[in-house]
């Protein structure tokens, strides 16, 4: 099927959502339909034997910008993850208490989906930039409008940080455009051999800063914890589950492909920093009392591992990146979803105020535990194969670095189990009586759906890597 149809498919639910407004049932059905359509289109691609599916239409001919889209092994899992995480976020929103459901939020999330599909499918640098930057807007509006009073500041910080990064990227894109004398912005017009090592170094820095802020990697992370903690849950799920994947995808599709010499030039600095971020995120997560901040810092730690793996430029590690980013997206979205249910039932996000939830809800406990296991990367969950490959790759690159990053295996279980213990086990907090945990059918079904993606890739990692590995191999050819 034409990728343009996939790109624009969320526009229709967006319009209907806006009209349906506060009608939760319609919103739920709509998001389910939207998910089914996306998965139907994406699974349909299987039948073509994984041939790259690409189209190109002129968009701004006077400027050489085209609507060039492709579905290939590299972006396939990013697209699937987009559909799933967007569904999870919309499901969360539409299953809240009746009076909290908002048509504009649902519509904005659907529009965000368009931007995300655009970023992942774009084969044109300008189109990529355009979607990359527009994707901040829906999150910005949802978070600031419906977040806590402190969200205003946190989200402005997020916006300006990301914008600063994007502007660096814009500068680099324009430089490439003017230097190569290209008349268009297609990825294929810029080859890795064109620029000298020195120039590639600068271009690498410009793109890296943009993507590292988005992910975020260690020295660029200061917006993250507040933005994740103060935003409404649906936008936190989106930010952590799928928005940061734009950075990972950009690193793979642009930086690895076009600036191999640049990575050699400056990569080692950032490998060290993001490997430090793995440890740093984990250590801070251990001492946080706000359940959302624990998850935010755990995300910093996990993404740090992904960033380190990408920069090592080892094929094994990059294969692991695809597995790990998919796993991280599912797990973190599920965890923020659950964390919100948990903190609502205690009327507090403070871990010290929690305890004994397992006595009142069995299903919740099981679900939460499986997500925790996935996040710790226990074998048979989705986190394991990716993390294994990543650490293997990093170890190949440098043993000491491998050792440092390997510590995440232990540390992540420390902070995740701590959360589980404090929230679920121990003396039941009397406050639960008043806020009985509401897990209605839609939420159970939705979480069970997410849970499938924790378990299946854990049992059959080849389902994912079978599609992506070939693309990664092509990507690593210049090496």
């Amino acid at each position, binding site marked *: 099927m034409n990728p343009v149809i996939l790109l624009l498919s969320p526009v229709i639910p967006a319009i209907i959502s806006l009209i349906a407004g506060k009608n939760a049932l319609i919103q739920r059905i709509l998001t389910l339909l939207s998910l089914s359509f996306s998965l139907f289109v994406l699974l349909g691609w299987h039948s073509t034997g994984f041939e790259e599916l690409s189209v190109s239409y002129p*968009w*701004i*001919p*006077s*400027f050489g910008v085209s609507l060039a889209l492709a579905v290939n092994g590299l972006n396939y899992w990013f697209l699937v993850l987009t559909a799933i995480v967007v569904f999870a976020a919309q499901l969360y929103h539409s299953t809240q208490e009746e009076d909290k459901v908002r048509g504009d939020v649902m519509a904005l999330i659907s529009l965000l989906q368009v931007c995300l599909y655009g970023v992942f499918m774009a084969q044109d640098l300008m189109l990529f*930039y*355009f979607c990359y*930057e*527009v994707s901040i*807007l829906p999150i910005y*509006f949802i978070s*600031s*409008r419906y977040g806590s009073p402190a969200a*205003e500041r946190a989200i*402005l910080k997020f*916006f*300006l940080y990301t*914008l*600063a990064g994007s*502007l660096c990227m*814009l*500068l680099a894109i*324009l*430089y490439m*455009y*003017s230097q190569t004398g290209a008349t268009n912005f297609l990825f294929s017009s810029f080859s890795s051999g064109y620029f000298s090592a020195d120039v590639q170094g600068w271009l690498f820095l410009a793109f890296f800063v943009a993507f590292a802020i988005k992910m975020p990697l260690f020295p660029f992370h200061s917006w993250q914890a507040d933005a994740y903690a103060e935003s409404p849950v649906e936008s936190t799920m989106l930010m952590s589950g799928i928005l940061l994947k734009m950075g990972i995808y950009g690193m793979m599709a642009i930086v690895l492909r076009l600036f191999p010499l640049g990575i050699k030039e400056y990569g080692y600095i950032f490998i060290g920093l993001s490997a430090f971020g793995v440890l740093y995120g984990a250590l801070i997560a251990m001492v946080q009392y706000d359940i959302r901040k624990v998850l935010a810092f755990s995300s910093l730690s996990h993404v740090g591992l992904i960033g380190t793996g990408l920069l090592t430029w080892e094929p094994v590690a990059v294969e692991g990146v695809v597995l790990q980013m998919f796993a991280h997206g599912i797990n973190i979205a599920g965890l923020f979803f659950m964390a919100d249910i948990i903190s609502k039932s205690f009327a507090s996000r403070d871990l010290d105020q929690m305890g004994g939830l397992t006595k009142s809800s069995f299903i919740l406990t099981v679900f939460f535990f499986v997500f925790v296991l996935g996040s710790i990367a226990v074998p048979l969950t989705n986190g394991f194969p990716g993390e294994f490959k990543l650490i293997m790759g990093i170890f190949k690159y440098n043993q000491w670095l491998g050792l440092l990053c390997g510590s995440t295996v232990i540390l992540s279980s420390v902070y995740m189990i701590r959360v589980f213990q404090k929230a679920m086990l121990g003396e039941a907090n009397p406050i639960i009586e008043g806020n009985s945990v509401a897990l209605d059918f839609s939420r159970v079904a939705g979480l069970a759906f997410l849970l499938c993606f924790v378990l299946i890739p854990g049992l059959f990692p080849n389902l994912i890597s079978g599609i992506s590995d070939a693309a990664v191999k092509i990507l690593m050819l210049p090496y």
Partner: protein
Amino acid sequence: MLTITFLSLLGLIVLFLGFSGKPGLNLSLTVVGLLAGLAILFGLDQNLLVPDGMDTQLSFDNISMRFSGLMIFFTFGIVMLGKSYLHREDIQSAEFLAVLLFSLVGALMLSAFTHMLTLFVGLETLGISLYILAGTDKKSPGSNESALKYLLMGAFATCLVLFGMAMLYGATGLLDFAGIAALNSSQVDSDLFRIGIFFLLAGVLFKVAAAPFHFWSPDVYEGAPNVVMLYMSVVVKIASFAALYRIFVLYFQGLSHFWWEVMYYAALASLLAGNLLALVQKSLKRQLAFSSISHTGYLLFAVLVMAKSNQETGILFYLFGYGAALIAAFSVLMSWFPTGDNIWLSDLKGAAKSDPAGAIVLTIAFLSMAGIPMTAGFFGKLYMFVPAMQDGLYHLLLVGITSSLIGAAYYLRPVMNVWFSNSDSLAPEAGFSAWIGYFCAILLLMGGLFPDLLTGLLAAIPS
């Protein structure tokens, strides 16, 4: 010339119709007249009715047509917005509209002159009308202050321009720009010529409120009635840049070593001063005034780039995006705050609750001014950044990009207040002006999603 003649006559008629005491009649006549002016501009040969001797002093070429079209179009929008202001009892609507039309005539001349005389006549017709317009709100001390300040500063700038012209005449013995531009380098290489060009440039920079000649503009903008402020920051800006473009790109491009550096540093200073000062304002009108200085910086940027690579789409697209965004923003602000007093940023709080559609229009307008993608402002900036990159103007580009980041920081503040704070204090009067806002917002989105529609339209304009 036909349009200029027509609009001058229209101004006179409107002035005399004032005796009839029906403000509605004046307004409709002006609106219809402006549309007719637009039709005449593009439908009829502009070289008709040019009196003897004037044909060498005005030239209705491609550039003049495009700038003039933009100016008449935006004036049309502004007059429609001014309806509620003009219906106030203490405003003489006939005077106001007539003076506005006369100033538009001056603005049109500024897009078509070829001679110092017509340049000066254009500048003064525009300037003197504006001094009157700034003071139309006779009972408001702010408006009076604004008019006086503008008069004094404007007169000073005029002196600079005149002095520059005199020096140029002294150095070359010529008054027409094409003639001066055709001189060979040994003929112009004199101190007199240098001083002349410097003062001419300084005078024009004064008029466009570029830093470091910007100090008058925030006070003038703040004090002037909203409609007049809008007119000054949209139409007058287009006219001034048409003049700047004609003098320095069309004629003096070959002499760029005389003026390039001065304009370069003025552009840098305007970008930085405008944006940094806008960051600390608490009044929305002052914020917009300072941001207007930064937009002057961007437009100077475009002129500098064009002087090297002749891409005039950049400046026109930018002016279009800026004008449409300001008109959209003011259409909303004027319906929320009909009294026309100063608007504080905190006054906007909770406005989205009472008028969500207006809030969306305002948001699109501010995002466009900040240059966020999906709005015309983004491509406006892109069309000047790309040639700047190709010409290797890296420092300018860096400053331009940094200041768009600063710009985003302060443009988002009103947007935040509109959407995110929950106090119900506004009772907006919805009206006709809202439709102008919607229209401009749609134009901005069109410009941001399909910029080729607009560039195609500009390219199709015949001379």
